[in-house]
């Protein structure tokens, strides 16, 4: 197996463990942010698995559908929305939830509509899918409107996930409590930025760091989640617990 198969495969394993861990918290506490995080992390893992599949087993239109829709377009938005739900429980957040679900379904419809027009003959197993998907998919002007939706989900995910993690870390730092949550949220923010940076470089034509960025992101975010979610003395936690990205 080559490095382009090993890195996404390792990311898949980390994300699988991470997703199960978060989903078990949702089962135990039934808080919406855990559910949105679980779904987003599962999408991230599905995208990584698709990359490992392409590197080892070759082309598959179904796997490409999974990779683009869940791995490239939706996952950041869903993870970030989970962070937003942790902070804000007002009515306008429900509107955003409806928009995210509706937008995701619409992106799924757009992706389905472009599937018959994929150029499978352009696929090269020696090149990472992140570097060659533009040659497989038609351009926006040729009908691949789903590509227009990706930046919206990713910008939304970046603002909410990284923004909330930085804000959360800052609140704990200002109150001078729970250093584990300060560091945990920093790791979560750094992990999210790692994949954001790698994705941006890929979009600008430098795709060599995408799989490495994904693995670093998976490891940092999981480490941050574990660190921020470590049990803390109740007396100090009471005032600020609700602002933790891993509550």
């Amino acid at each position: 197996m080559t490095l382009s198969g090993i890195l996404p495969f390792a990311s898949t394993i980390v994300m699988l463990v991470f997703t199960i861990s978060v989903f078990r918290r949702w089962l135990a506490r039934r808080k919406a942010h855990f559910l949105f995080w679980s779904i987003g992390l599962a999408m991230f893992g599905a995208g990584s698995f698709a990359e490992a599949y392409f590197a080892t087993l070759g082309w598959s239109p179904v796997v490409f559908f999974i990779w683009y829709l869940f791995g490239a377009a939706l996952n950041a938005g869903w993870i970030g929305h989970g962070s937003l739900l942790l902070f804000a429980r007002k009515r306008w957040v429900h509107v955003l939830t409806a928009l995210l679900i509706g937008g995701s379904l619409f992106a799924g419809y757009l992706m389905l509509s472009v599937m018959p027009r994929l150029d499978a003959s352009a696929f090269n197993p020696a090149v990472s899918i992140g570097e060659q998907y533009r040659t497989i998919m038609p351009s926006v002007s040729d009908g691949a409107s789903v590509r227009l939706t990706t930046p919206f989900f990713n910008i939304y995910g970046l603002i909410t996930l990284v923004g909330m993690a930085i804000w959360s870390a800052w609140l704990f730092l200002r109150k001078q409590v729970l250093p584990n949550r300060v560091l945990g949220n920093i790791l979560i923010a750094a992990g999210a930025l790692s994949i954001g940076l790698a994705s941006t470089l890929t979009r600008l034509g430098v795709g060599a760091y995408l799989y490495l960025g994904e693995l670093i992101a998976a490891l940092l975010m999981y480490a941050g989640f574990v660190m921020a979610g470590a049990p803390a003395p109740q007396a100090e936690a009471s005032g600020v617990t609700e602002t933790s990205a891993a509550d």
Partner: protein
Amino acid sequence: MTEPEMVDPGRPKQEVRRTPLKPSASRIESDSVFYTRLVPVILGALALMTIVLIVIAAGVLIGVVPFR
């Protein structure tokens, strides 16, 4: 309905129980260079990186940044 509790003014007030704090686990030392100097710089750098990425993504979206 419950009976109102008779209060004896001579009885000492009950003390509120407080969980003893573990300074190392729950509090950030105010003289810690790591938390007072380094962590704010890291947070600022992360915030700056976020803004840069958002600007690039927005640039791609509106066609200012070349998209390959």
